[in-house]
């Protein structure tokens, strides 16, 4: 088991009453799964991904990741955990505008303190694999949306994570680009990377091995 959510509640207080963002979420993810989270706007897809990604807290419930209990963990250990095992892909790509393609992909390795020679090899490998060697010195603004997302995925993968969290990864792309990206996820999944994606689109959800439906107020429904 990669991770397990038991009775997760997350709310904000507004005027004395609680507004639930996540309500009693239960989810078990095995390694090698490809899960799609679906639901209308405001149903808490992103919040759930953030909770899984340990970027956001929750008020109640248990979260176990690789048999470690995240809910009772200190901030520092938690961030160590997600840096080690989780890669993020965003709808808006979130590349650093001031860095080239090469440097964007290299950044997580820098933060991990990996040696220069090893870094070069890893980044070169990744560029080659995604067929973007020719673009390595370009800045994000010089790339198309699809290409930017490709770089975003390459960057998420560079640190060899067990789990990729993708929040509407094709939301800003046209259908052709979108198909290419989903195909790429599919391939990655067959290579053994666990993927959880949030999506609006039934077609994209169909790439996954299973779909989790969120209703308004964040109650999940399988």
């Amino acid at each position, binding site marked *: 088991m990669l991770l397990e959510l038991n009775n997760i509640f997350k709310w904000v207080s507004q005027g004395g009453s609680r507004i639930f963002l996540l309500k009693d979420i239960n989810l078990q993810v095995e390694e090698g799964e490809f899960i799609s989270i679906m639901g209308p706007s405001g149903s808490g897809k992103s919040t759930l991904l*953030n909770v899984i990604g340990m*970027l*956001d807290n929750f008020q109640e419930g248990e979260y176990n990741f690789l048999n470690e209990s995240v809910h009772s963990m200190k901030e520092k250990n938690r*961030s160590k955990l997600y*840096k080690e095992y989780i890669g*993020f892909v*965003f709808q*808006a790509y*979130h*590349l*650093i*505008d*001031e*860095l080239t393609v090469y*440097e964007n992909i290299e*950044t*997580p390795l*820098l*933060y*991990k303190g990996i040696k220069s020679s090893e870094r070069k090899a890893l980044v070169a490998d990744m560029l080659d694999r995604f067929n973007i060697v020719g673009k390595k010195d370009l800045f994000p603004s010089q790339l198309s949306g699809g290409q930017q997302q490709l770089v975003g995925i390459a*960057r998420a993968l560079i*640190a060899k994570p067990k789990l990729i969290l993708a929040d509407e990864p094709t939301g*800003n792309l046209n259908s052709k680009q979108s198909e290419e990206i989903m195909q790429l996820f599919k391939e990655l999944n067959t290579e053994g990377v666990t993927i959880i994606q949030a999506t609006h689109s039934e077609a994209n959800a169909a790439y996954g091995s299973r779909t989790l439906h969120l209703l308004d107020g964040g109650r999940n429904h399988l």
Partner: protein
Amino acid sequence: MIRNYFKIAWRNLKNKKLYTTIHILGLFAGISFALLIAVFVWQELQVNKNLKNATQQYILTSHWKNPNMGADFATLGPLAKSLKENYPNLVANYYRWDGITSVIANGETNFREGIQLGDESLLKMYGFPLLHGNAEKAFDNPFSVVIKAEKAIKFFGKTDVVGERVTIQNFEGANHEFTISGVLPEISENSVSQFFEKDDNGFFIAKNSATFFDRAKFQDWQSHIFISFLELQPGKTAEDLKLPIQKLINTHASEEIQRNLQIIPVKLTDYYLEKDNGTISRLLFTLAFIGLFILLMAIINFINISISHSGSRMREIGIRKVLGGRRKQLILQFLSESIILTAIATILACIAYSLFRPWFGELIGKELLSLSQLPAYFLVFPILLIGLVGILSGLYPAVVLSSYKSIDALNGKLKNSFSGETLRRALLGFQFITALIVLIAAVIVGQQVNYFFGKGLGYEKEYVVTASVPRDWTPEGVQKMKTIRNNFEKIPSVESVSLSYEIPNSNNGFQITSFKAGENPDLAVAAQGFVADEAYLKTYKIPLLAGKNLQANEPNANNVAINKKAVKTYGFKNVNEAIGQQLIIVGEDEPLTITGVFDDFHFESMQQKIKPQVMFNVNANAIYRYFSFKLKPNSVTEGLAEINKQWQVLMPGTSFEYKFMDETLANLYAGEIRFKKAANTATILALLIALLGIFGMVALSIDKRLKEIAIRKVLGASVKNISYLFVKEFLIVMGISIVIACPLVYWLMQLWLDNYAYRITIGLTPFITAFVMVCSITVILILLQTLKIAIANPVNSLRTE
């Protein structure tokens, strides 16, 4: 990793040219100014430190019970010598000198020059090297002169002039040849070879030629006009001198001197900074303080703009955090940016230093060293500065920016934390306050300086020029001068000409201590003694209040005119009562008779109260130094040309070197004028930096409220409404700043004005000027930025992604 930081920092800065420019400009202004001040302060602290055995060098200063009795920098002629002779274990060496001015000529070339007539020990005692000549033997022969290199060039066009001869005139008008025995190179500033700031004593003559000048009475215990230096034996201090000095004075000096004089030896290394009630050290403190403040403002500015700018960095911070960047790493990244900026600003400041140097030198009245002349350890300072300012100015933004929660940062949710906002407002307020204080202070200083040159002088300075005349202090000499004066008076463009010993430049010839006849001699008061002719009052337009003017052919040396202040001080009821009365000078038999009373005028700077003055007639007291010419307003140039022409005919062998009264006054108030310029400079810098700060703040507000503005526009807000939204925000900060700044600056300026016996009262004008200026500039700055947004199509800002 570090390289990576720098690379990112560099690109970031390159991409945001406007912000980078503002950042660098602000820091550059602050650092440049601080650098200039630092060099100046260092230079001033070095004065006298490079003399041989500098820690053992002393000057004897005189403290008179009544400061009018004598100058504090000079002392009794034989004192230093007797100390050395009687206490060889205490005093290692001594040097005394007397300053005179005379005409020096090399063939046809002649100038009036300052001469330092003193002991032969000069060169050896202080280890002054000679550019040419032998320091050991320079003063061995009488009629030898050592000259400064600049004077050698002035007279001979070269420095290698040992063996050449110059002719020097004495006070009887006789000439004698002097042989140049040495040339002094430019030596680092010290109080021995350049005692007075404006001093251009360029000729050093030993006392073995003193008889020629018949003035320097090195043996006279009554004469207290000698600047005297001592070098103490190793291990001895000023304390050890106390008893010997007291003993010598009690043995040799007159009872009056014993009663009134206290000699205080001062270390030369302290003397320069502490003389004149510590004028220099106060100036250094003030300047250092201003420099620090400006630098601080620049740093604050940097912080403000960095935080303001952070909005655009939020997403990057978020991504970096998600990608595994630790807080420490992010802080380092931001610090490297600020260090790069500071480094650029510092390097620019160092380059600009050579451009600003002459200008700043003029401002403070002293040439600044060039950077290459500074000792090598000065290199540490820019590096320290880059590190310190870089970290100081970058730390707060770095800590704040890196503290945002990654998920909020990623979504661009800038938390409007109350404390951050308040802090930024407070910092901006601080800048406003500083800008207001310096601005108001500058206006007040300007008003006071104008007052010095204004109507309150008591005499008319317009179209008055003065010129030194060759001396022949005999009754015949005076008659000759009077004839020359009458010739000058015939020039049509000259209104009147006066021959006198004093001009209103604070240097008078002597003091007299006297009392009203019939009163108790213990009530004797010191008055400034003047020597002038009958045209003096007319030339300077000083009103005669009672009695008669000085008479042209006055045979009696003791008929005098006094000023209004003296009337009161001597105890006469009114000006008319004083006429015909007698004054007794302490220690003399012949009484003075008052024949006239003239109105008070400012002979000294307005820092001093007007003193009692007694004016003697030059006709019977044969000493004089100046001609004062009152020219007719419309023909100043022709007047001067005509005077020059006549001068060559009437006094061949001397040149007409004139000064307008305005220049003389500018010298008298050099310190104040400098202070005014410094205040103006500080004002411009402070305003510049404060405006950069406001600029940054406005940019932030607009950035944050882009969407709000668009919505307001869609809802029908006019450009005016929107601009007002921003102006309002700053006017509040400004209002609070005004409330804090006003009492503060009022108090500070009262303190400064209290230095002056004659001063302006602080009115509303400086305050209103400052408000209007700062407010209007701020509003314009805000409008310039907001208008662009307010006019823009709101659709562009409402579109997301």
